[in-house]
């Protein structure tokens, strides 16, 4: 009889615990499901747009796939160097100079792919271009991430690839993928991957605010994971650059507490000039 009472009491206590737990903030879990997705197969896209203000004419395109979005820009034939900034309130999709595209030639795209499990919504974005990237403005609808509290520590993957104008106004090809994964729970294991994913120039991996040693060399700054342990790992491993020879860099660090840096940029610089940028979120140790 006494044993039955104890069992009933234990059952009651566990029911109450479950009920209270269900009402409280959801526990954050590590999401293993999307670890394999490194590309974005477009299943739906917005109609391709064409800007035409003040003599600036270029195409923009936005698409979405499973847990991913893509944004692309390209000049049309017979147009000059065009500074463009495409963003919404939370993210910078593309911040580049589109290279001049002579008449009767095909103009290459510059494309950004953002892979994460965030819900995708259609909403207004700002496409500004011209001098200071604020001379003319269009507000096209595009796929955006929904502002919501994440309950899973799903990976963040950002790809930027295509042709942009370098500091000497010449077209150069870049193709970079940056990924941020989380494994384990307290301590968390943070894994960062920086990889070349196509025809691309070589890059020096730089801390934010640092410029490449030579003005002609391209530098890559990923602001979101730029923590002390991140650069200590690179230093200990002797990793300085990403090239055709060293096509992939993997950084592994551990942390008791972590946070998400959502709005920081992935920036390609040449000397002191920024030649391409896009938002690239990542997990990082909480200070």
């Amino acid at each position: 009889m006494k044993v039955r009472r104890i069992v009933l009491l234990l059952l009651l206590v566990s029911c109450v615990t479950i009920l209270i737990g269900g009402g409280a903030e959801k526990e954050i879990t590590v999401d293993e499901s999307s670890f394999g997705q490194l590309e974005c197969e477009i299943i739906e896209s917005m109609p391709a747009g064409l800007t035409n203000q003040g003599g600036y004419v270029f195409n923009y395109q936005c698409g979405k796939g499973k847990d991913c979005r893509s944004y692309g820009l390209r000049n049309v034939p017979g147009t000059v160097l065009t500074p463009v900034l495409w963003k919404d309130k939370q993210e910078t999709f593309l911040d580049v100079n589109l290279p001049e595209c002579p008449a009767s030639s095909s103009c290459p795209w510059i494309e950004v792919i953002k892979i994460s499990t965030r819900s995708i919504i259609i909403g207004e974005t700002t496409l500004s271009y011209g001098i200071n990237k604020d001379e003319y403005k269009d507000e096209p609808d595009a796929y955006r991430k929904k502002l919501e509290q994440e309950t899973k520590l799903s990976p963040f993957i950002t790809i930027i690839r295509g042709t942009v104008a370098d500091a000497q106004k010449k077209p150069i090809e870049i193709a970079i993928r940056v990924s941020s994964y989380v494994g384990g729970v307290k301590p968390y294991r943070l894994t960062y991957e920086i990889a070349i994913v196509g025809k691309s120039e070589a890059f020096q991996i730089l801390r934010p605010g640092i410029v490449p040693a030579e003005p002609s060399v391209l530098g890559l700054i990923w602001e979101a994971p730029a923590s002390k342990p991140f650069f200590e790992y690179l230093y200990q491993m002797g990793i300085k650059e990403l090239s055709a020879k060293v096509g992939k860099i993997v950084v592994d660090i551990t942390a008791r507490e972590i946070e998400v840096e959502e709005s920081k940029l992935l920036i390609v610089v040449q000397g002191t000039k920024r030649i391409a940028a896009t938002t690239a979120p990542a997990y990082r140790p909480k200070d």
Partner: protein
Amino acid sequence: MWDYIKKVFKLVGAIYTFLNVASLLGIMFFPFKITTSYTLRGFIAGFSIIGGMLGYFLTASSWAGKERARCLHRRNIYLAIFWFPLLIFIGTLVIFRPEVAIKYPLVRTIREILLTAMPLPNFIVGFGAGFALYFLIGAITLSSPELPESHP
């Protein structure tokens, strides 16, 4: 400060002060038709106001009570110099136009150099506007017949 402003206003006279304000507004707002960049408009407006104020107050303070012939001679010099910064200021804005750059390869090259040197062109345009207004307002101030007769 207020006394100093009133003193300078008296030195120059109401009509010439009005002409100065009109020139400032004209030079400041005319380029707003050429560029819609808010950053560049900000630079133009900021430097124009600084250049115009310096032109008004410095010229009035330095030339009050001097011979009219000397004032007019200096006015002619100011008017001659005025065109150079104005040319740099308006020229840079025109160079930025894509339709001009498409037609002329040299303009295209200069435009590309300027665009990749941002924010330097903002300062070039700003200084151009500022200096143009300094010399124009200086010249208008020196034209005032009340200025040589004033005794600061």
